[in-house]
């Protein structure tokens, strides 16, 4: 599990998958071309490797795309995503609200820090996937367990980054706002949150990425539904093209989601970063 401490502070955050996509200004067009080229190269290498016959369980790129289209057309992929998204979205929304809320409160107040920091550290350090079977003992195999699995993975990193972000707010800006008569609430809203937002968002991106792991783990470990079911099913009947198509689709979906979050951050909180672009 990635640790909040290893996150860079204010530099355009490099975090989860896809976060390396920080477009430069005038190089924007050619950068896109290079990225597309690398994707094409990857697909070609995949095709060549599969045709060379590395492994009978390794389908070619074209077969995988074919399987993907087939599952899109017969609706099975859509149904699976709808099932998977339910615990994912609920779990991530809860992790965001609780994680950012707790983290910011921990950063602002020493008593909250004293009370919750040990819990967060334990949650972040412990291999949460190992605890998923425990959750099913208590909450059964339904939606609650899956939501909890998402939260167990997503929440600690979000809380930890939010906490560190608030603690890293420049004391000089706090002194400045105090000198210009800011109330505590104005200080939080106008200084602490904008200052902390890049790091909080880095945590959110990591958390969302962890949430994807959580939901897939839950579907593989608790009960096979949605994406996890598709993967398990196609593996069991040796439909490797379909299995790979599902895996690649969830990876791409996660990357797109996490990248979209990065744009959301810039648009919401840091207009000066937008102007550099």
């Amino acid at each position: 599990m990635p640790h909040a401490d290893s996150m860079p502070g204010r530099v355009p955050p490099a975090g989860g998958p896809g976060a390396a996509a920080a477009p430069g200004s005038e190089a924007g067009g050619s950068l896109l071309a290079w990225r597309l080229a690398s994707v094409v190269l990857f697909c070609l290498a995949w095709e060549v490797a599969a045709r060379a016959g590395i492994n009978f369980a390794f389908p070619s790129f074209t077969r995988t795309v074919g399987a993907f289209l087939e599952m899109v057309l017969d609706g099975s992929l859509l149904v699976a995503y709808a099932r998977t998204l339910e615990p994912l979205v609920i779990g991530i929304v809860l992790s965001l609200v609780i994680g950012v809320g707790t983290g910011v409160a921990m950063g602002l107040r020493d008593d909250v820090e004293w009370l919750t920091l040990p819990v967060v550290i334990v949650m972040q350090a412990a291999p949460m996937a190992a605890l998923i079977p425990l959750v099913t003992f208590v909450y059964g195999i339904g939606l609650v367990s899956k939501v909890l699995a998402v939260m167990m993975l997503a929440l600690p990193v979000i809380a930890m980054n939010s906490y560190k972000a608030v603690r890293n707010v420049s004391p000089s800006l706090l002194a400045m706002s105090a000198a210009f008569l800011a109330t505590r609430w104005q200080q939080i809203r106008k200084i602490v949150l904008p200052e902390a937002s890049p790091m909080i968002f880095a945590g959110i991106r990591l958390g969302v990425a962890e949430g994807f792991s959580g939901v897939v783990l839950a579907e593989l470990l608790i009960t096979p539904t949605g994406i996890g079911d598709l993967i398990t099913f196609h593996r069991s009947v040796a439909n490797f093209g379909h299995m790979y198509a599902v895996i690649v689709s969830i990876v791409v979906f996660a990357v797109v989601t996490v990248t979209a979050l990065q744009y959301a951050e810039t648009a919401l909180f840091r207009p000066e970063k937008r102007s550099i672009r």
Partner: protein
Amino acid sequence: MAATATGVRTGPGAEPAAAPPVIEVRNVRQVYGGGVVALDGITLDFAEGRLTSLLGPSGCGKTTLLKIVGGLLAPTAGEVLVRGRAVTGPGPERAFVFQDFALMPWATVERNVAFGLELRGVPKAERLEVARHYIAEVGLAGFETRYPHELSGGMRQRVGLARALAVDAEVLLMDEPFSAVDEQTRRKFQEDLIRLREVENKTFLFVTHSIEEAVYVSDRIVLLSPRPGRVSRIIEPDIPRDGDPEAIRRHPVYLDTVEQIWHGLRQYVD
């Protein structure tokens, strides 16, 4: 200690009789954790409309004293009165200029300058109008919608100065405002500060570690000695500041005062 240069009055208590004090510092003592005495027995008056420098080597507590006057720090003992009322925190009659500028990197120049008014709930159109006026006054017209990272160090401090002017406080507290900019910009700043005083009728408290800077801009220089910080001397250089700003640097009183202060301070330099 006796005055050595003509036209220089020295010694504690050399107060002008005319202007009433805006700020009175009474027996202020500041002890930091670990028993370090930063300030001890500081009693000073700051008269209206005057520019007073707090000058001394590092560790003499000059910034600490400024923060106490600004209400950003509560003294261990003693009190500060602003217009006769005890200071318990920052107030609208005092505005701060920070050594490291303390600009919000996510806000444009005009939002930074208008920030003090924004916090006071002044409507947006009104506060931006005030901000633009002061942005022009500090010589940054045309940069209203830029962000701090697009400005040079000197320009950033002009933003910090405009922000302090925009709240229209009586007292401007400046914490080594020019120490983070290069020497040329610094000189230009000092000249601009003298010109600014002709336009803005304010009381200035100016912390600096530069002897030349203190003598160049100040009506009155409070020399602090370190460990513990005490007032060692008060000097009032009588230098005419109207006319050519360059002439001040060649004025005999300027040169003598700089020399005199250096002789007083060199004993504290390791």
